């Protein structure tokens, strides 16, 4: 279960019922006298003395109440990926409790205590939660268990080694005496915190690797789950905003006479680049927004269009870039090769279109700022609120909530800064909600990529050299500048040479930024997703040029990559790759390594007379090492494929006259029920280190689909989204 403290605030009763996160934790420790592993905010009177608490600060993940309730303080936020459950499983495994005994609270913003060890700061993204916390959370659970065992042994005056923990109890094995964790929690808190407790061998796992019911599901079935947009506070007003639709531009003039006349509208707030309508409810705010008359001033990039950006990228692609990978002499070999292939591949700007539009609730008081939000980088949200409010970060409290989709959009804090800038002009709490149109037109988009690929083939059609030049904006340079080194964006080149052993390889990266105001950011998989499309499409071209079967061709290049070949073979086998398909259906394959996980997918497609593509079935093989919650892995593959299919078939943000052309779900089209393929997921049984699962399912699908379209029609698509007009009247055959 999840306590109503998850997310911090009750849906309707408001702040009166919900204590602040910090208050909850402190009160819990002081009043409960329970066991809290190394939580830094513990008062000095608590059993875990201050120095030890400081030393154990990184393991601030578990609390055992005197009533035996186990609370996991989740360092990762829940946005649908199932992390509340799978992270809790890691702790529960070592703590020897069942998941039913566990409640989850979200961690407060704190880059030191709750940094993802794989990334170094507090962030949920990059398919990194299990990989980052695989050991620390098991260790946190094991430390707590060890202290409970020591406490019991002390009470019984026996050796701790003669006791064992199971199902929320400590048992003295020789005598069969038992004590529950609830009876032991207070005493255990007085035990020294062990430093190195041995972790279980994987063969002894009870929970890890078995399908678990998700902790957050019940609340998501009856309307009781509290997303950021659901926060309600006494005296709160609701605002909606229009930011300058001219990219990079600002407000020139506002006529709010009609807007203020709308019943329920309370106030109009003007910022440099946006105008907000504050009202009693969102209905009035939207009506007020429609009645608002705003003149806008264009940005420094002027009234540019997508076509101009593309011209800039084409020019940029003629420059040599920063070297991302160089083995041998790819350029020389390609130049001298009797047989070579060259191709340009392109991917569009993409919006995230989370179902829950951007929103943030803020109460700025004279000496404090309180924020309620769903966000993937809480400490950044806190810092952004501090900057916008003019208060020091320690005066800013952030309550996190369930995210109605993240996909990388909520790795940004622009909507937090904006909400605070509006709310600080008001005396009351304010919830700012973006309309869908605002959400689409003021997203931070997946970059446009314009890539040049080339390969040389020997007389058997096998590649002797491969080169890949990536042209696109740098997310890392904006979002994580210290890691943008030597003009190289490490993410943009992730997977740029594919999964294969090419004898000579060159990967280079040319940074080409769009005009100011058009920001690019993370989007489910980014680097891997982008490069998988380019490389797996191009390798399919090489196979066709060699006259080889796409699976056999790839196998020949995967001699020394058993796990990659394993998923390739498994997907091919489960899809009955060698068995002929009915007329009018084509199949394509792709194989990707990313986020520590190997995925292969086979897509089966048909093309209608008008060129419309239908994906009928996807077979997915995944090797993500040791599984934690296999049902979540299936769900992430299924969902990742659907998310990737929306982008493959429809996703495209375009710019005309300085404005984003798409606005709502009619012009930025998501995949719908009748378009969803049947999906089969096959998970490889493995004891290797766990890999990530949030993104690789998305990364693999687009190339599988375009390769299937090629197999069916002979038409090679090198640009997304699929352009149906290119597929009209093409020949169709089954492969």
């Amino acid at each position, binding site marked *: 279960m999840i306590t109503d403290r998850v997310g911090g605030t009750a849906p309707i009763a408001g702040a009166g019922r919900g204590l602040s996160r910090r208050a909850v934790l402190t009160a819990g420790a002081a009043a409960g006298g329970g066991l809290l592993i190394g939580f830094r905010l513990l008062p000095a009177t608590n059993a875990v003395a201050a120095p030890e608490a400081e030393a154990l600060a990184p393991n601030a993940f578990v609390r055992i109440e005197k009533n035996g309730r186990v609370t996991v303080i989740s360092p990762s936020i829940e946005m649908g990926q199932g992390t509340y459950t799978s992270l809790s499983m890691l702790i529960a495994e070592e703590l020897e409790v069942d998941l039913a005994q566990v409640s989850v609270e979200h961690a407060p913003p704190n880059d030191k205590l709750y940094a993802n060890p794989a990334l170094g700061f507090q962030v949920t993204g990059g398919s990194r939660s299990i990989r980052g916390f695989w050991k620390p959370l098991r260790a946190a659970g094991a430390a707590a268990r060890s202290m409970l065992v020591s406490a019991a042994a002390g009470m019984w005056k026996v050796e701790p080694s003669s006791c064992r923990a199971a199902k929320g109890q400590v048992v003295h094995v020789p005598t069969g005496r038992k004590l529950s964790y609830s009876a032991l929690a207070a005493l255990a808190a007085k035990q020294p915190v062990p430093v190195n407790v041995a972790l279980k061998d994987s063969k002894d796992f009870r929970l890890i690797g078995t399908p678990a*019911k998700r902790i957050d599901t019940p609340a998501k*079935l009856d309307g009781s789950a509290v997303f950021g947009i659901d926060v309600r506070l006494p005296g709160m007003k609701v605002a909606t905003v229009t930011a300058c639709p001219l990219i990079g531009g600002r407000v020139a003039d506002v006529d709010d006479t009609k807007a203020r006349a709308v019943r329920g509208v309370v106030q109009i707030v003007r910022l440099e680049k946006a105008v907000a309508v504050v009202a009693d409810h969102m*209905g009035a705010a939207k009506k007020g927004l429609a009645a608002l008359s705003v003149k806008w001033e264009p940005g420094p990039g002027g009234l540019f269009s997508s076509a101009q950006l593309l011209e800039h990228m084409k020019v940029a692609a003629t420059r040599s870039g920063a070297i991302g990978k160089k083995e041998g002499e790819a350029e020389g070999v390609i130049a001298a090769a009797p047989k070579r292939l060259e191709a340009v591949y392109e991917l569009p700007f993409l919006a995230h279109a989370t179902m829950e539009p951007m929103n943030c609730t803020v109460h700025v008081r004279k000496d404090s700022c309180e924020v309620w939000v769903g966000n993937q980088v809480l400490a950044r949200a806190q810092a952004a609120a501090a900057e916008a409010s003019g208060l020091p970060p320690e005066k800013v409290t952030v309550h996190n909530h369930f995210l109605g989709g993240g996909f990388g959009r909520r790795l940004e804090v622009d909507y937090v800064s904006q909400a605070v800038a509006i709310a600080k002009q008001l005396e009351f709490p304010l919830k700012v909600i973006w309309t869908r149109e605002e959400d689409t037109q003021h997203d931070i988009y997946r970059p446009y990529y314009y890539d040049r690929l080339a390969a040389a083939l020997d007389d058997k059609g096998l590649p002797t050299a491969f080169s890949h030049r990536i042209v696109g904006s740098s997310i890392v340079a904006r979002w994580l500048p210290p890691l943008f080194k030597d003009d190289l964006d490490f993410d943009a080149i992730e997977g740029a040479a594919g999964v294969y052993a090419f004898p000579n390889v060159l990967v280079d990266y040319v940074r080409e930024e769009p005009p100011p105001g058009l920001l690019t950011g993370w989007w489910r998989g980014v680097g891997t997703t982008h490069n998988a499309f380019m490389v797996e499409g191009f390798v399919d071209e090489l196979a066709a040029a060699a006259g080889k079967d796409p699976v056999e061709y790839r196998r020949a290049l995967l001699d020394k990559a058993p796990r990659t070949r394993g998923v390739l073979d498994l997907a091919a086998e489960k899809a009955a790759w060698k068995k002929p398909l009915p007329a009018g259906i084509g199949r394509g394959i792709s194989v990707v390594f990313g986020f520590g996980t190997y995925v292969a997918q086979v897509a089966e497609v048909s093309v209608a007379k008008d060129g419309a593509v239908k994906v009928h079935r996807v077979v997915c093989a995944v090797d993500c090492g040791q599984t934690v919650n296999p049902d979540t892995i299936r769900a992430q593959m*299924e969902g990742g494929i659907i998310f990737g299919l929306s982008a493959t078939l429809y996703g495209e943000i375009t710019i005309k006259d300085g404005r984003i052309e798409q606005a709502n779900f009619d012009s930025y089209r998501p995949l719908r029920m009748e378009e969803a393929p049947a999906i089969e997921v096959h998970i490889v049984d493995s004891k290797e280190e766990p890999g990530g699962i949030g993104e690789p399912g998305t990364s693999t699908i687009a190339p599988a689909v375009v390769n299937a379209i090629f197999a069916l029609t002979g038409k090679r698509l090198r640009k997304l989204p699929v352009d149906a007009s290119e597929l009209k009247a093409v020949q169709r055959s089954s492969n």
Partner: protein
Amino acid sequence: MPYTININGVSHTVDVDGDTPLLWVLRDVLGMTGTKFGCGMALCGACTVHQDGTAIRSCIAPVDSVGKSAITTIEAVTKTPGGRKIHDAWLDLEVPQCGYCQSGQIMSATALLASNPRPTDKDIDDAMSGNVCRCGTYVRIRQAIKQAARSTAEKTKGG
């Protein structure tokens, strides 16, 4: 002017403009936040509620159109036998991911089974294509509707 509307069997009087969408009356005036805002143009189905048992998009339904009809929302639908079956199938198959669209999905699915106890794949497509899920839970939604339909059929068969 004040409007008196019936939500989940309870009468509420709200004083808003008549063109205020029912969605915002539910969420912001009455504090029933289970019904979600997704698009404001009946394009995504996140705001789906029942009006006399029929699925409607509350984001484009003005409050003055409600009249004496009975509105049912996600907060109450699982207390109905049909809603309970959908709920149980959703829980059993672990349908939700982020969960934001699921209120609307459950409302649409419940209305479908009420009018069509044994829907075909085509029926499911037709009834559910207005409900967008960006997490991509469609595969499980389809399975869950079929499972709920089977549970109804089995119960009927068994008397």
